[in-house]
């Protein structure tokens, strides 16, 4: 198993797509920070931003599409935590995690390299588990790079670096890494089971753009009409948890989000490993 992980790690490090995605993500983070910086200096824009945040806090429905707003009160300093929260909630990091997950999870199947090793494993499911381990490494590195870029961008475009409450930031980052990792595992499972890059990539991007909200809304409506019960699906999903985990959330909220991540991650990885174990390699 360790050898397979080493093999996939080497493959990941040699993959150009990883570095290209990180560079593009860094560029996007710089762009959003630059935009936020100029807006922040405009009192009217700053007030509008705060009003948007206040509206969102009371709702459980997500907006479709991708957007970035920061939870900084007008007149206060924008912290690293605020900017990081805004980008994460806007699924900036998520989109680069899922794109890489699709490319990485399916590349050995797509090019046929799997034929060289698939028949020689004791258990073929270990190939899926190895991918899962390496996606964790990728997710953690992505967040480290995102934070470093944010630190530099804050200094450049805001003129100062205010970190915010370190322990809260650490807890938030850790839970978001877990959630993004779960998202990567879901996308990996889709890529392995569907075996079609176009469909997998499309689904992954739609998930990041909150298009699954439409599906959840339909399911909630269906449950309500059948059983006369109100169900809130969104906060029990990974994408919903990424978006709705508040910046200074309670430990209960952090725990619940972590639990959602762990359950989805384990279930999807197990299912994809079982499917891969039993399916013929073509």
């Amino acid at each position, binding site marked *: 198993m360790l050898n397979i992980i080493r093999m996939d790690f080497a493959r990941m490090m040699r993959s150009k797509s990883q570095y290209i995605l990180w560079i593009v993500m860094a560029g996007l983070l710089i762009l959003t920070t630059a935009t936020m910086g100029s807006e922040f200096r405009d009192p009217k824009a700053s007030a509008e931003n705060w009003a948007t945040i206040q509206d969102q806090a009371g709702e459980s429905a997500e907006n479709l599409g991708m957007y970035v707003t920061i939870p900084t009160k007008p007149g206060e300093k924008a912290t690293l935590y605020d900017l990081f929260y805004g980008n994460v909630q806007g699924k900036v990091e998520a989109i680069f995690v899922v794109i890489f997950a699709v490319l990485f999870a399916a590349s050995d199947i797509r090019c046929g390299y799997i034929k060289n090793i698939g*028949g020689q494993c004791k*258990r073929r499911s270990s190939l899926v588990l190895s991918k899962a381990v390496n996606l964790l490494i990728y997710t953690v590195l992505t967040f480290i790079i995102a934070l470093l870029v944010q630190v530099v961008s804050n200094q450049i475009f805001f003129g100062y670096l205010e970190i915010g409450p370190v322990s809260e930031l650490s807890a938030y980052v850790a839970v978001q890494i877990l959630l993004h990792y779960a998202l990567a595992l879901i996308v990996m499972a889709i890529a392995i089971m569907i075996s079609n890059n176009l469909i997998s990539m499309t689904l992954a991007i739609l998930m990041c753009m909150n298009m699954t909200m439409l599906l959840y809304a339909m399911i909630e409506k269906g449950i309500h009409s059948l059983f006369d019960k109100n169900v809130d699906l969104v906060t029990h999903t990974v994408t919903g948890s990424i978006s709705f985990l508040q910046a200074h959330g309670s430990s209960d909220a952090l725990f619940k989000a972590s639990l959602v991540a762990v359950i989805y991650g384990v279930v999807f990885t197990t299912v994809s490993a079982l499917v891969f174990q039993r399916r013929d390699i073509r």
Partner: protein
Amino acid sequence: MSQMIVKTQELTKQYGHHRAVSSISMRVRKGAVYGLIGRNGAGKTTFLKMLAGLAAPTKGEIELFGRKGRELGAVRSRIGCLIEAPGIYGNMTAYDNLDLKCRFFGIRKKGYIEDILKLIGLSDSGKKKTKNFSLGMKQRLGIGLALVGEPDLLLLDEPINGLDPQGIVEVRDTIMRLNQERNMTIVISSHILEELSKIATDYGIIHHGELIQEITREELMKRCVERLEIATDTPEMVVPVLDTMGIKRYQIVDSGHVWIFDGIDQSPTINRELVQAGIAVKELKLCSEKLENYYLNLTGGGSHAEYH
């Protein structure tokens, strides 16, 4: 008795209503080069995929290195395979592709990859990405990947496809060297019968998913060599006549036929002697069969045959 490396029992693969492989029971002895002959769509690739662990059988059993069932997992690493088109990462070099498989096996020996590159004739590929390789180079890299881990059993599915004449010779020489120097057991499928006849020691002929014949090279050559075929109701009476004539190589094939391999240019004399001995000769004819014709006659597929 030779040890059997591969044994299959009633091996079957069904895709929906289509039976790709039907009840194949086959034996491959250790150190053999087993040629799997069959036209496109006969079931060769599907059969090899099952041996390689890439496809699960619908029915039947596989035994490799004396292990079967759940124990197969323990010996799978002793198999190297090249099935259909080589599976390689286009954005990596030949070295990197081999390096990944070495990591899979935990091989860290210095110079190991270079040795394989030299064996397959890709030492000079350098930094060239495999997506820019010719078909022959990709095929050779595929063989190289199959060799990583020093397999005891090599499964090659049409390895000379797309190779130029020199490439074919090189692959053939490589296969023979691996078989002779490393005592590697090799199962190689092809529809280029002439090439297969130069290296295979045993043959299995697959047609419509069924193994219709298993035969050694010696037996195949016997059946393909030039001979006089005599049809008679009393073949046992032919033997003393041939012995008197000094003809030593002959064979009573069945209750109605005798094949003569010596003195085939003396057919009028043989005929006269047999008649004078009171033997009723129904038919006397000179036969020889090219390997392709032998295969075509066996499979009854003259109009769809593929031979070179």
